């Protein structure tokens, strides 16, 4: 089955880890993930600047490794990311900000990508809140 997975929570939220474990289990079960889409505070889960405490799971780093190793399509909503300070090199330059902090493997794009994924997928699964 084809899944689209949307995440709306920051990496320190249990919902971010839950989405990641779900995505791993979906692949392990032989399913396909057509796209990961991060929206609202979910954009922080694609930040390369997160430094998790040593005794806590580094969910943002795990996300970045996961999409690279599984070669997944990872899209972060550009409007939500700008508002929350997660920028790729192009946006950082365009807006004169000091530093690009979008993690490897992610791409900033628009909400159309969420709808495109929802059209291609059999199920859209959203994770958010706590």
């Amino acid at each position, binding site marked *: 089955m084809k899944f689209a997975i*949307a995440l*709306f929570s920051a990496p320190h939220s249990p919902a971010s880890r839950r989405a990641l474990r779900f995505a791993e289990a979906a692949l392990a079960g032989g399913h396909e993930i057509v796209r990961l889409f991060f*929206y*609202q505070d979910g954009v922080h889960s694609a930040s390369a600047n997160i430094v998790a405490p040593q005794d806590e799971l580094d969910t943002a780093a795990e996300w970045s490794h996961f999409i690279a190793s599984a070669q997944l399509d990872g899209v972060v909503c550009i*409007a*939500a990311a700008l*508002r929350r300070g997660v920028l790729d090199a192009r946006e950082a330059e365009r807006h004169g900000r000091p530093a690009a902090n979008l993690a490897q493997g992610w791409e900033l794009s*628009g*909400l*159309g990508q*969420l*709808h495109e994924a*929802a*059209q291609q997928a059999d*199920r*859209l699964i*959203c994770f*958010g809140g706590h």
Partner: protein
Amino acid sequence: MARSMLIVSRQSPWSGPGAREALDIALAGGAYDLPIGLLFLDDGVLQLAPGQHGATLQQKDLTANLKALSLFGVDKLYACARSLADRGLANTALAPAVEILDAQGLAELINRYDQVITL
């Protein structure tokens, strides 16, 4: 045939970007001519109260975004009767106009859509 999506908006208009970001999903879907429904639930119904003005909070109110819905072809708008009553809005003229549904109507509405995003 395109898959339909119901967006359930549960955020108040003044609690941060949540309500606007839910509307943006609906508007983006409308721009792609997708079959989109929009349900105002819980604090989301506060977006429909008349006479709000964000200038005092140095915030743009949602009026323009709500008006844009019909321009983008998003005209399936619903609100929860119970949510309106709990907030003293049972007898208030709402803008834009929405179809008001009871619990059974809401359950049926959700089951008519292929996908649901609640936020």
